[in-house]
């Protein structure tokens, strides 16, 4: 069965390592914070100027001067620091962030990503996504495998305006874990109960299947 959003987040949490500095994007990526293993220290960065994001505040304790990049009220963990936006992007651009997790509208088999603009529809802006994808050492995309109409989001070429080129390394969807390789999307794991046939059918870009593909352990 396909994973729900929390399932995708749980699988991505397995990619974390002790001591990692991680930037989580808005949406499914944010949920990864709920599944950090307890024996692991992972520091979450927010590009508006916080290293060490804590849980949401208790009711009545929200501080308007303490928000995350999604503009939600948050808290800061012990040992956190605050800084300006230029310093924040020095962390990102300078390669100091170990892992970036973000959402996407489309990903191409070459690792291009489109995540910020649908022409003629919504105008939001790229925010920090272009900086993150251009500089992160390791990028994981968290997304559903298909859009609401059932069209594949894993394409030969992106059709929407790009956020970055040849930058995505790994994709975790509701159906599979895939790596971007020179020859296309390499299937690494299947969601529990999901067949390789279904993944093949729902992947428009080149899909590489080598041997038996194991199921994710969630």
């Amino acid at each position, binding site marked *: 069965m396909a994973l729900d959003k929390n399932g995708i987040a749980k699988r991505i949490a397995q990619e974390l390592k002790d001591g990692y500095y991680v930037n989580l994007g808005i949406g499914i990526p944010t949920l990864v914070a709920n599944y950090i293993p307890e024996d692991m220290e992972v520091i979450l960065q927010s590009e508006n100027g916080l290293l060490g994001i804590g849980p949401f505040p208790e009711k009545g304790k929200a501080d*308007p001067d303490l928000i995350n990049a999604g*503009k*939600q009220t948050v808290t800061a963990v012990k040992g956190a620091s605050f800084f300006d*936006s230029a310093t924040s*992007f020095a962390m*990102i651009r300078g390669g100091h962030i170990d892992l970036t997790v973000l959402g996407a509208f489309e990903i191409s088999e070459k690792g*291009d990503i489109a995540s910020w603009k649908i022409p003629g529809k919504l105008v939001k802006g*790229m925010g*920090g996504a272009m900086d993150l994808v251009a500089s992160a050492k390791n990028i994981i995309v968290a997304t559903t495998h298909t859009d609401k109409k059932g069209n594949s989001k894993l394409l030969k070429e992106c059709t929407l305006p790009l956020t*970055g080129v040849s930058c995505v390394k790994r994709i975790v969807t509701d159906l599979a874990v895939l790596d971007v390789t020179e020859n296309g999307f390499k299937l690494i794991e299947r969601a529990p109960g999901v067949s390789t046939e279904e993944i093949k059918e729902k992947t428009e870009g080149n899909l590489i299947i080598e041997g038996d593909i194991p199921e994710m352990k969630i």
Partner: protein
Amino acid sequence: MNKVVKNAEEAVKGVKNGMTLMFGGFGLCGIPENSLKALAASGIKDLICISNNAGVDDFGLGVLLRDRQIKKMIASYVGENKEFERQFLSGELEVELNPQGTLAERIRAGGAGIPAFYVPAGYGTEVAEGKEVREFNGKMHLLEKALTADFAFVKAKYGDYAGNLIYNNTANNFNNMMATAGKITVAEVEELVPTGELDPNQIHTPGIFVQRIFQGTDYEKRIEFETVR
């Protein structure tokens, strides 16, 4: 050194139609509420506004947008503003969207006297259109130019008469760089104290960057998305 002005009305004196203005803040966090209100009341128009976001429909920069005082926005993320989207899609408002880190660095560079610099963000995207591309260390980069402004409006938690500023938590964001990039930088603070009362070790923005400072009033400090456990 005394840079104190009486209030927001006095602080925005000299802002004229067609000027380029910077506004600190991320979303509604750390925005110069008092200066924004005074500018909205002034009716000054054809402004070029540099700000990470564009406020919400009835608060912050959203009010200047609603009253058609803004000709062009230079920003990075404007998702929370319907009026912005309408004016942009209809072509009434000129918009230049920047990757957020590029925007921050363009402002930092402007204040630091660096006219242009290379960054990887935006290579291969529509942001790269018309920009010089150059390879460094096997990676492609874009030439980005510095930003400065006629006036920069920033907001801090504490400030002294000499213009030294201390920000609070994530309300620092774009304020610290913008303070350096205005020909005239106007700081509004929640608590204005006599010179000498702030610990020099804790100052974020040294007073040299600030030309006018005033005690803000009636801070609303609106929260965009109150999220609790």
